[in-house]
């Protein structure tokens, strides 16, 4: 009557694969950052599944939940820095199209 752990992991896998596809396919910097957030959320979901698997009703092992909190924190910091980079990029190039950045290709 409760949520099955394996299905949580499968949902995390599907979301992660979607995020990878978006990261590799899209060229808009904002959507690339959104795909990264999607991948981080998939990772969080599998931490939650692991936390459930290592807990019994008598003894709860909360390491997974703590790790999820740290991932959320790092995701917030990463989004802030990434979006600041996007703003700086827009100021420099007037675009957020990643294919417009090829100075380092030599």
């Amino acid at each position, binding site marked *: *009557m*409760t*949520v*099955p752990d*394996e*299905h949580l992991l*499968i*949902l*995390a896998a*599907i*979301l*992660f*694969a*979607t*995020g*990878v*596809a*978006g990261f*590799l*396919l*899209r*060229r*808009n910097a*904002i*959507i690339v950052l*959104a*795909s990264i*957030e*999607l991948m981080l*959320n998939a990772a*969080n*979901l599998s931490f*939650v599944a692991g936390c*459930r*698997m290592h*807990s019994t*009703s008598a003894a709860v092992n*909360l*390491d997974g*939940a*703590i790790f*999820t909190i*740290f991932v*959320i*924190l*790092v*995701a*917030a*910091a990463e*989004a*802030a*820095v990434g*979006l*600041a980079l*996007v*703003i700086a990029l*827009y100021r420099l190039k007037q675009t957020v*199209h990643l*294919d*417009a950045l090829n100075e380092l290709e030599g």
Partner: protein
Amino acid sequence: MAQLLFYLLSAAAIAFGFGVVASKSPMKSVLSLLATFVALAMIYLLSGFQFLAAAQLLVYAGAILVLFLFVIMLLNMSDLETLAEHPTVSLGHTRVAIATVSAGVLGLIAILGAGAVQASESAAMPPDGYDKIEWIAALLFSRYMVPFQASAILLLATMIGVLVLAKRRRPVQTTELGRVDA
């Protein structure tokens, strides 16, 4: 009942996840990301993680998504002209092949791995959920004290870094005395 709700929410999360990747304008993409986050928060709630569900809604939907929307509106990227000028998906054949293969292989490995997991005798959920705030606080202030402090330093460094990155640089002023940095 809870299980049915879980599958409905999973389907919603997957559909909106595809929406993030597939929608043309960044605005629609970020709004589907919001829907994905809300569905995931509901899944956390169903799985017995009340605090994580609240944190997910507060931090992701409340803070990160607002930041995304703010930047999109600031840069005015929903402009159709700029969308037409730059293709949002560059469909080079190699790039599509690489993306499909890597996402497919990753997803397949993860799904097979998840299928191989032995469910732990379906232990009953504790009555008031897994993540009681007292337990989380006790762990954060004992075993995870060092990462906790380090995350405070990380947030401070992020704040300063973002300020430096996003600050408008003033043009260099020149006077008759020579170059003076503004």
